[in-house]
C-alpha cells in the first residue's frame, strides 16, 4: 500500500494533460478554473461506451455551467479525425481529449470504458468508476439503472459534501488492453 501511495503522489505532480483534437496540450483540471471537472473515459470500439452517449450528454447538460465534462480517448490509434466523426455520429457537444500515453487514465484511476473521474474544485479526485449500474455484465443491462454514481458525485462536489462512494468499477472494456 505505501509504495503505491508514494507512486501516486509522484505521478500527481508529473503530467495531467491530454491532447485536444488540434493536438494542443490541455490540462483539463486547470482549463476551466473553479469548476468541478469530470473526465469520461471512452473507447470507440466499446459498444457499452457508445450506448452511454445519450446518458453522458444528458448528465453533462444537467450540470451545465457548474461542472466541465471532458471525453477522454485513451486509444493511441484513435486519430483526431476519427474522434471528430464519432462525436458527430453520437451527437456529443463536449470537448474531447486524446490520451495516448494514459496520463489522464492514471490521474483518473480509470480501468474500464466507460468510467468517469470526478475532481472537486481543489482538483482532488473524489470519485472514480462507473456512471451508474445500468450494465450488470457485458451482455446484460438493466432496463434502467438503479444507482447514479456520477450524478451523485458531481452533486456532492457542488454541495461541498463528501461522496458516499468513492469508487465502483465499471462494466465495459479494459483500458489496459490498449498499449
Amino acid at each position, binding site marked *: 500500500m505505501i509504495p503505491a501511495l508514494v507512486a501516486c503522489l509522484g505521478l500527481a505532480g508529473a503530467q495531467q494533460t491530454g491532447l485536444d483534437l488540434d493536438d494542443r496540450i490541455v490540462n483539463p483540471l486547470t482549463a476551466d478554473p473553479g469548476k468541478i471537472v469530470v473526465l469520461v473515459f471512452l473507447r470507440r470500439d466499446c459498444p457499452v461506451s457508445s450506448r452511454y452517449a*445519450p446518458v453522458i450528454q444528458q448528465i453533462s447538460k444537467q450540470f451545465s455551467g457548474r461542472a466541465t465534462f471532458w471525453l477522454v480517448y485513451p486509444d493511441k490509434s484513435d486519430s483526431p479525425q476519427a474522434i471528430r466523426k464519432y462525436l458527430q455520429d453520437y451527437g456529443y457537444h463536449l470537448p474531447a481529449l486524446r490520451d495516448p500515453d494514459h496520463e489522464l487514465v492514471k490521474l483518473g484511476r480509470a480501468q474500464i470504458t466507460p468510467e468517469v473521474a470526478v475532481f472537486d474544485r481543489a482538483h482532488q479526485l473524489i470519485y472514480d468508476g462507473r456512471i451508474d449500474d445500468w450494465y450488470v455484465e457485458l451482455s446484460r443491462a438493466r432496463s434502467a439503472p438503479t444507482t447514479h454514481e456520477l450524478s451523485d458525485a458531481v452533486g456532492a462536489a457542488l454541495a461541498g459534501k463528501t461522496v458516499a462512494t468513492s469508487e465502483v468499477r465499471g462494466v465495459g472494456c479494459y483500458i489496459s488492453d490498449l498499449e
Partner: protein
Amino acid sequence: MILLAGAGAVGMLAGRPARPSLRFSASAATPAEQVTFNRDIAPIIFQSCTACHRPGEAAPFSLLNYADVKKHARQIVDVTQSRAMPPWLPEPQKLKFADELRLADAEINLIQRWVEQGEIEGDPADLRAQPRWVAGWQLGKPDLVLTANKPLSLPPSGTDTYWNFIFPVPIPETRWVRAIEIRPGDKRYVHHANILVDREASSRQREAEPGAGFGGMEIRIESQVFDPDSHLLFWKPGTVPYVEPEGMALRLDKGTDLILNTHLQPSGKPEVIQPSIGLYFTPHPATRLPMLLQLENDVKLDIPPGQKDFVVTDDFTLPIDVELLAIYPHAHYLGKDIQAFATLPDGAKETLIHIPQWNLNWQAVYRYAEPVRLPSGTKLSLRYLYDNSDENPLNPNHPPARVRGGNRSSDEMCHLWLQVLPVNFDSAQGDPRMALQEALARHNVEKNPGDFEAHYNLAAMLQARDKLDAAIKEYELAVRLRPDDATGNNALGAAFVAAEHSSQAVGYLQTALKTRPDYFDARYNLGLALAGQSDFRGAAEQFRLALQLQPQDANVEANLGAALAQLGQLPEAKSHLERALEIDPKQPIAKENLGALQKEMNSH
C-alpha cells in the same frame, strides 16, 4: 468483470498490468509450454469468433489478426471464462446440437495462459489461413430479394424496440423455398429476427399505412385452414443461413406475406434499419412435412413480486412417432432456468435443452445434430423457473411488481417450440400432423377450460378431421363462453348445417348476424340452413343479401339459382346459375342445376 481487488492503489502504478487472477507461474514456462497467438490462439479465434467479429457483421469490433486480438485480450479472457462469449446458452448434454458454439475448457485456459504470458505473437510460419469469409449473401445471389418498404428509424436511447416488417412475396404461382437468408439491416443493432409466414395477408391490417410495418414483440398469424407452421425461420448474430434438408422445402403461395419480427437495441446514436430477405427456390416440392409443436403455459404466469423461484411446467404426450429436429425456448426478462426434457415410454428421461442462465438477448433456435427419435407415448415436458426478485438485474420492474403472461416485453412468457417430423405413419390415414394438432388442441383445452379460443380451435380441428359431433360439442362450449361471438356462432351454425341438423343451425347463425350484419359467411350459411328446412323463400333472401356483400361469389349465385328453381321462378333461376358459371365455369352446383333446369324448362 472486476478483477482488481483493492484496485485504488494498484491502479495508480503506471504501466504495470494488474492481473491478480494469474495462476500460471512464468518461471515454469518453457518454450514448449509457451502459448503463442499464431500457433495456439488464432485457430480458436478464427473458429469461434471471427464469423461475427469482422467488418459488416454483428460484433462491435473485428478479431481478424494479432493486433485486433491483443487490443481486447483481457476482455476476451473475461468473457470466455464467464462464457458470455461466444454466445451459447445451453449446457452440454447427450443430445448434441448442430453448430455448437461452445469453447472447450482447454481453449479457455489456453487464452488465459496466453494473456498471462504477455500475449506473444509467435512464429508467423505457425499461422494458418483464416476460413474464407464471404461478404454479403452467404449462400450466393438469392433467386429473389425482398427489401423492407420503409426503413425504421431507431432512436439513440430508450428501451429495446420490437418491430415487424411486412414483405409481400411477388410470385405469380406457388414456389418452394429451400433456404431463406435474413439480412436484418445493420447487424450490430438487431438482436434477433424471426420470420412468420402469413398466408392470408392478415397482418397488413395492423400497419398504420401500407408498407409501414408495425410494433410488437409477439405476434400471431390467423389462419382459416389447417396449414400448420412447419419451419423455424430465425436469425441471430452469427447465424449461418440454413438450407432445408431434401424434401422439406417451405411452400410459398401467391399472395403470401413474410413477416420479419425483429428485436432492436439502441446503440447510442440514431440508426436506420432496413432489412432484406433473400429467397432461394427449389423445383422440388416438399415430400416431408414437419410441424411446429408448442408447449406453453402462460395462464400459469402470475408471479408475485419478490418471488425468486416461480416454476411453470407443461407436459404433452405425443400421440404419434416423430423425429425432433429443432427446439426454440422463449421467455422474457424474468426467465432464469429453462429446461425441456422427454420421458420415453420406457421411462428413460432425456434432456432436450437446459439453459441455466436464460438471456432473452441471446435467444436462439437450436437444431439437433441428428434428428431425435421420439416414439408415440413420449411425454414432452418444459420446466421454466422465473426470478421476480430485485436480485434479477433484468427485472423490468424496480421495485418488483406482479407480472403476468402477455405479449409485451414487460409481461412474461412460457413458450417452447419444437420442430417435429412425423414418422412411421400410414399415409392412407391422412396427414399425420392432424392427429398431433388435435392432441395439442385437447391439451390446450385441458389447460385453459375457460378459454374460448382453446375450445374453438379444438372444434375446428375436429371438424377438419370429420368428427362432426365432437366438433359441435366443442363449438357449443366455446359459444357458451362467448354467447355473442359472431365467429363462434357462425362456426357452430355451419357445423349443424354440415351435420344436416339445419333447424338447430338457424338460431346461432341469426345471433352471428345480429352481432355482425355484414358477416358474409354467416349470411351464406343461414341461406343453406333455411334451404335445408325447405324454406326456399327465406334462403333466397339470405343469398341475395350475401351477394350484396360479395357480388363475385359463384357459390352464392349457384345456391340462389337453386333456391329460385325450387320456388318455380325458372327464368330468374337460370340467369343466376349462368352467372355462377360465368364467375367459375366449374361450379358443380350450377352445372348440375342448370342441366336439370334446361330439361324442366324444355318439358314445359
